[in-house]
């Protein structure tokens, strides 16, 4: 009886031949697909190998503990033989404080920038991760741990140490109970930051902030009577009058009643990464709203507003930042009354902010133009006035489109802070590094400071870039 064979189930699929799968396939397709590619692959690998072979000993022989470059070299020679090269990171041990805070920032006050840096993230958290309790918990928890660690390392005085930790703990609780309320801390942060970094009487920033309250109340009281724009103008005048004439006496009187002050640190004692972050963060914070206003102004139907905005944007954008910095630092000095003390850092801050705002305005103009005409018409059809239409319909969409461009502009701004070295401010890349090299113990050190500073800048900029990526994903509402 002929036995018939009937297969009852399918054979399992065989894996593809070895040349068609896994690493081999990938290499065939990507590295070795044509003679040109083979050539490029070989050259590329040779270059990588060459770089690693030549640079590896330098990294491997790193010295972390030495008193001078010469000692570093001796240590490298002793451990790796004559003629070996090695990185000398030991300079960081001596110059660490100067690289981070600037060489002149008082050593006993270094806990203040440290704390401010932690609080910065508390203030940013509700803006960056609105209402997400888990993210807030992670960030605030990290800030609490960071503050505990770094403040004790910096030997912060007991009272501010305890107060700071209690404050952060309270904010942590608040973020879990009522996350939306955390925004109040964000609003309170700029004056707090100012007070912590520069010091002086606590009443100075408080009374200065009261100026904004004056602006707001005058605006509220006047706007039903004379309209929005004149009311805003009146509010501004009232606030300026407050700052010019009321500020001084009020602060004096409050000082007489209750004196709470930190040691005043003039801004020419700022340096290193403290200086970079102060310029970078201030520039970023203030250039965005100014940029938005400029962009809207450029689109405005009012010819004078439009013309002023165009002139401003083009004038600022048409001039290199270094020129503006020179103007800020020196030409202004000729036109100010002699011995007038207009803080150099403040001048630089204003110029950097204005410069960045002009660029942002153009970025935003692009995205405003990219919005379909229908969106503007829909806003009009709903009967929204100009500001409501912008706030509710136009800007949310325009800002969303331009996130990558805005963030890349911010990254550019942050890196541009190193240019202030040209007006003799001690930023970390060239300023502080110049001092390290002027120190007879470390003269001749070359790559290490660049690599260190570059790494820190990379961390900041990469962080910003990743956040923008995250934000894009979060705000993605289309179905492309």
């Amino acid at each position, binding site marked *: 009886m002929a036995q018939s064979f009937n297969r009852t189930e399918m054979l399992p699929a065989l894996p593809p031949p070895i040349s068609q799968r896994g690493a081999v396939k990938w290499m065939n397709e990507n590295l070795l697909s044509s003679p040109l590619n083979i050539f490029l692959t070989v050259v590329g690998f040779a270059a990588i190998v060459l770089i690693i072979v030549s640079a590896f000993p330098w990294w491997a022989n790193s010295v972390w503990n030495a008193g001078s470059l010469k000692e570093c070299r001796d240590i490298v020679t002793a451990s790796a033989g004559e003629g070996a090269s090695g990185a000398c990171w030991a300079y960081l041990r001596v*110059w660490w404080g100067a690289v981070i805070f600037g060489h002149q920032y008082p050593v006993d006050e270094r806990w203040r920038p440290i704390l401010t840096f932690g609080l910065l993230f508390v203030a940013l958290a509700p803006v960056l991760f609105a209402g997400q309790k888990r993210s807030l918990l992670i960030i605030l928890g990290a800030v609490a741990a960071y503050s505990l660690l770094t403040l004790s390392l910096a030997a912060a005085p007991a009272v501010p140490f305890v107060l700071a930790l209690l404050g952060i703990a309270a904010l942590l609780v608040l973020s879990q109970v009522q996350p939306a309320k955390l925004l109040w801390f964000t609003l309170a942060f700029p004056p707090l930051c100012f007070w912590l970094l520069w010091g002086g009487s606590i009443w100075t920033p408080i009374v200065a902030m009261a100026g904004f309250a004056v602006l707001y109340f005058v605006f509220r009281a006047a706007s039903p009577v004379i309209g929005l724009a004149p009311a805003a103008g009146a509010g501004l005048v009232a606030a300026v009058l407050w700052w010019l004439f009321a500020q001084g006496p009020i602060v004096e009187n409050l000082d007489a009643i209750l004196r709470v002050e930190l040691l005043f640190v003039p801004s020419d004692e700022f340096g290193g990464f403290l200086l970079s972050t102060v310029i970078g963060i201030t520039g970023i914070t203030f250039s965005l709203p100014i940029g938005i206003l400029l962009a809207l102004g450029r689109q405005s139907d009012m010819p004078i507003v439009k013309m002023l905005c165009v002139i401003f944007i083009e004038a600022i954008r048409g001039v290199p930042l270094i020129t503006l910095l020179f103007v800020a630092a020196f030409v202004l000095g000729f036109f100010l009354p002699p011995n007038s003390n207009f803080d150099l850092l403040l001048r630089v801050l204003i110029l950097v902010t204005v410069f960045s705002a002009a660029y942002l305005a153009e970025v935003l103009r692009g995205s405003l133009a990219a919005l379909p005409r229908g969106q503007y018409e829909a806003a009009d059809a709903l009967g929204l006035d100009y500001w409501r239409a912008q706030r509710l319909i136009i800007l949310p969409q325009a800002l969303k489109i331009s996130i990558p461009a805005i963030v890349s502009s911010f990254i550019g701004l942050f890196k541009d802070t190193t240019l202030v070295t040209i007006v003799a401010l*001690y930023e970390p890349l060239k300023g502080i590094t110049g001092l390290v090299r002027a120190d007879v113990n470390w*003269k001749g050190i070359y790559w290490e400071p660049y690599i260190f500073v570059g790494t820190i800048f990379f961390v900041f900029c990469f962080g910003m870039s990743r956040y923008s990526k995250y934000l894009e994903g979060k705000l993605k509402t289309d179905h492309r």
Partner: protein
Amino acid sequence: MKKSVFFGALAATTLVSGLAMAGTLDDVKARGELICGSNTGLTGFGAPDASGNWSGFDVDLCRALAAAILGDASKVKFVPTTGETRFTALQSGEVDLLVRNSTWTASRDSELALDFVAVNYYDGQGFMVNKALGVSSAKELDGATVCIQTGTTTELNLADFFKENNISYQPVNVADDAEAQRQYTAGACDAFTTDASGLAATRATLPDAENHVILPEIISKEPLGPVVRNGDSAWGDVVRWTYYALLIAEEKGITAANVEEVATSTADEEVKRLLGVSGEMGAKFGLDNAAFKNAILAVGNYGEIFSRNIGEGTSINLARGLNALWTQGGLQYAPPFR
């Protein structure tokens, strides 16, 4: 046309601000602090350490001045200035004087409305080469690659020198000292040229200093000294004579350690006048009679300042050379103090 209007306006404002700041000495006294325009950091001459304490050859002159005017050498604020910003900072009144390795030239004296009041260091441009090159004179550098900072007078001096000697060179442009040192040690250039003091400082920090030699030719004159604004000669006199006081002190053997003792015991009339024991010399400058004694007490005499910061025995290891006193074959010469 526009340009001339702009510069006219600038000159006018300079003039106005110059007039308004006529009494720098009074300003300093009223402020209680001397504002000294210094280098952003130059080894041996002026640089802050990691905790912000300034030291150096130029810095000590500022301290001496503060001690003379205010009686306290610590009452001085150092404002760093870059090569680009230094003269504007002085003209606009941000600093009281500059003590930062600025070369005294005719055009700076005339055109920029500045006054160079003294020469505290006679420098000159030199060359450093690797011994392996087998060169013993700069005139043998035909065809060499030379590391040179762009935009400086050294660049022009270099071109002149090679042209005069009818030899050729290949410039390797670098932005600053650190880069020059890097290029030189990496072998990108055969010779490195800058001020001789800078060469010495660089050589001292090379890993193989013994393999490098500074050639004997000095191809330029670089008299470096304190600078003040034009039109305030009373202030210029204070700076000049404080400096001369330090020179006279060295000449007479007065040091920071023995100045008090000398003041009580000396029989030398010039020394008595200098230290304010007799006469009213300090008052003639608008200063305290003990002003110059205070200056010497604070930083020592010129020789002490020199040997402490840049002299033989320090890692920069500069010989006195032209900066020796005139009695010892140098150029440092102070007019009589009477």
